[in-house]
């Protein structure tokens, strides 16, 4: 029934346009009114609606109109393409008589966030899952996992952190009252009959647990039999725990409280979490200084480092989607004020230049980054005439971490303990302007350079506000990095940098349209 009704509407619309074609002379008559209607009147972000205008008048008047919209875009034939929005937004469609531009008519179209668009997953920044005890500046989406091939053995996990600084889906197993949501029994990946386990080291801690396979669905995008890490509190081998950085959080994957989320979806610049190293050198790591152990096969409690083919490594799940698989766009269309907000909402949009809602022209510049070498994924950030080539964008960092007090002149919140982790400027908000540019794998600047400006607020005041989204939360990179232009110092542009922006993360070696011939990841664009 529904389909039939739509068909009739479209046919009548076409007939109307055809009928008015011969009516365009306009000699002698006058236009008295324009009425507009759009169907459907509610569309999802990036969706389309057909609008039509009825022009009334006297004598031999013209029925031609020009179309405009208060947001999104509209074609000359009245096809409206909705913008990407994070909350319901009313867009006004206007048809103006070409014969008499003072006569026009309007109609409203309601644009909804995501649900009707398959490549858009809503992002929320809130206080996190209850078991986390309150988080700040973590971007969450929901992810559905199913036992491969099953449509009934499925679970939707909420509050999965969106991380452009890593690759792979990792979920916390519910065990020992650790707050984990995942209870689904997903089949383990095995090598030689033994369960594959992984030690994954992040900037500030590590996680440990088995690699399983699952059918993964986010928004309308799906992939089958995806290797996924299940994070558990089980004791990791010493060759894993010994990579925990001093000052880090240790084994963070053991509980929701420690991790701050029910899981993490790494949608970063690369295809797999390890890559060629784990294919050829994974078994010979021996926990040496530069050859860490990543994947292990475990028989009982005995785990042995192993080589793993790329196809069995934990991948950036985006690469396995049937469509929209060359990267992601993180869109926070609304800004967060310097004082923060209780929550922030945005969109995780899959694909770059693959749909009407992820065109690369939503970004001002493309910043290419090295696909290999010790600065893989890093930008050159210049501040006060000094370049810091190990800087990076990372939605998984919860603040803007950069330089130190002696370079920025911004006071720390304290000299010791956790107060030394954050900036508390004397006269907040303090504005910081930097220049970002891409680089090649030899460290030479590459592509356009452009200024970026952000604010720094008093972190302790922010924390006292009970807000969860902070655009001006910042801290030092590490104390003492300011002396002598230490090249170990840099900028970590965390989630606050993403607010109010469209930030693209393009995956290594995946072609992208809209940035020239042969253009491919890895790059950031915003």
């Amino acid at each position: 029934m529904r389909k039939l009704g739509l068909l009739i509407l479209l046919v009548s619309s076409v007939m109307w346009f055809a009928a008015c074609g011969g009516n365009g002379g306009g000699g002698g008559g006058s236009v008295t009114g324009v009425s507009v209607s759009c169907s459907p009147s509610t569309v999802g972000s990036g969706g389309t609606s057909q609008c039509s205008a009825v022009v009334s008048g006297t004598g031999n008047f013209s029925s031609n109109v020009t179309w405009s919209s208060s947001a999104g875009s509209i074609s000359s034939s009245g096809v409206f393409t909705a913008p990407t929005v994070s909350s319901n937004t009313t867009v006004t469609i206007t048809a103006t008589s070409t014969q008499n531009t003072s006569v026009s008519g309007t109609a409203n179209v309601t644009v909804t966030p995501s649900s009707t668009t398959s490549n858009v997953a809503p992002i929320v920044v809130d206080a996190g899952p209850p078991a986390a005890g309150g988080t700040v500046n973590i971007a969450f989406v929901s992810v559905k996992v199913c036992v491969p091939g099953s449509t009934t053995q499925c679970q939707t996990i909420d509050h999965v952190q969106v991380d452009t600084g890593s690759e792979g889906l990792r979920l916390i197993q519910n065990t020992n009252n650790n707050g984990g949501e995942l209870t689904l029994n997903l089949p383990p990946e095995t090598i030689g009959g033994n369960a594959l386990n992984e030690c994954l080291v992040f900037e500030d801690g590590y996680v440990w647990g088995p690699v399983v396979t699952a059918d993964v669905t986010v928004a309308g995008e799906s992939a089958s039999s995806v290797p996924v890490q299940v994070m558990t509190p089980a004791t990791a081998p010493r060759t894993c725990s010994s990579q925990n950085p001093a000052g880090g959080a240790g084994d963070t994957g053991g509980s929701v409280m420690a991790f701050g989320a029910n899981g993490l979806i790494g949608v970063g610049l690369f295809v797999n979490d390890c890559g060629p190293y784990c294919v050829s050198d994974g078994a010979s790591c021996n926990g040496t200084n530069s050859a860490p152990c990543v994947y292990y096969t475990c028989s009982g409690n005995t785990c042995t480092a192993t080589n793993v083919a790329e196809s069995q490594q934990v991948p950036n799940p985006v690469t396995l989607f049937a469509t929209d698989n060359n990267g992601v766009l993180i869109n926070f269309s609304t800004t967060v004020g310097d004082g923060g907000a209780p929550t922030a909402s945005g969109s995780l949009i899959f694909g770059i230049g693959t749909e009407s809602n992820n065109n690369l022209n939503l970004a001002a510049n493309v910043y290419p980054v090295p696909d290999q070498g010790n600065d893989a994924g890093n930008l050159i950030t210049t501040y006060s005439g000094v370049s810091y080539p190990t800087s990076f964008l990372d939605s998984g960092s919860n603040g803007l971490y950069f330089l130190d007090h002696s370079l920025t002149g911004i006071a720390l919140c304290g000299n010791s303990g956790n107060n030394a982790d954050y900036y508390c400027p004397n006269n907040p908000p303090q504005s910081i302007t930097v220049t970002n540019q891409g680089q090649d794998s030899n460290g030479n600047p590459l592509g356009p350079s452009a200024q970026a400006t952000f604010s720094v607020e008093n972190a302790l005041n922010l924390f006292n506000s009970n807000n969860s989204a902070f655009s001006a939360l910042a801290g030092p990179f590490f104390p003492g990095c300011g002396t002598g232009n230490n090249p170990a110092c840099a900028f970590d542009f965390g989630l606050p940098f993403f607010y109010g922006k469209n930030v693209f993360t393009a995956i290594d070696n995946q072609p992208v349209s809209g940035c020239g011939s042969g253009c491919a990841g890895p790059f950031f664009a915003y």
Partner: protein
Amino acid sequence: MKSFNSNDAAVKLALAGALLLALSIPAFAVLGDNAASVLTDQARMKGTLHSVDNQTYVLHEITAPTGAKVREYVTPGGAVFGVAWEGQFPPNFEQLLGPYYQQAQEAIAQKKAAQESSQTPRRRGPVFIDTPGLVFAQSGHMHSFHGMAYVPQLIPQGVKSSDIH
């Protein structure tokens, strides 16, 4: 500034001599250890060694076949006072920090306890500890890590902590 490679016979002899003297020292110590551990590390990393004498200290840079680098900063007296690293993964800190690994673990525990009692949200970003006996910092993301650690008391006169990177 004098630059030399590990196949320099005299250097090798000197380092080997130090290695002999160091046999009673646990083989997997680096920070705070003597220069002999540089060769141990080079062997373990299957890496190439490049050494530069800056007068006030000697910098030994070991490059692994993967491209990952570990730099070890040695006093004229032969003590490793600082280390720095970069690569796809963080290094094994138990080996690299040697006798200071335990100190680092204790600092982690203290920082964690302080964070839990302060109600301040955990910083999720570059990590550091800044204690009188050990300074440590690391940053990065999957596929690129950078960091350094040093023992303030061991830094020779005329050397800045920012030289360790």
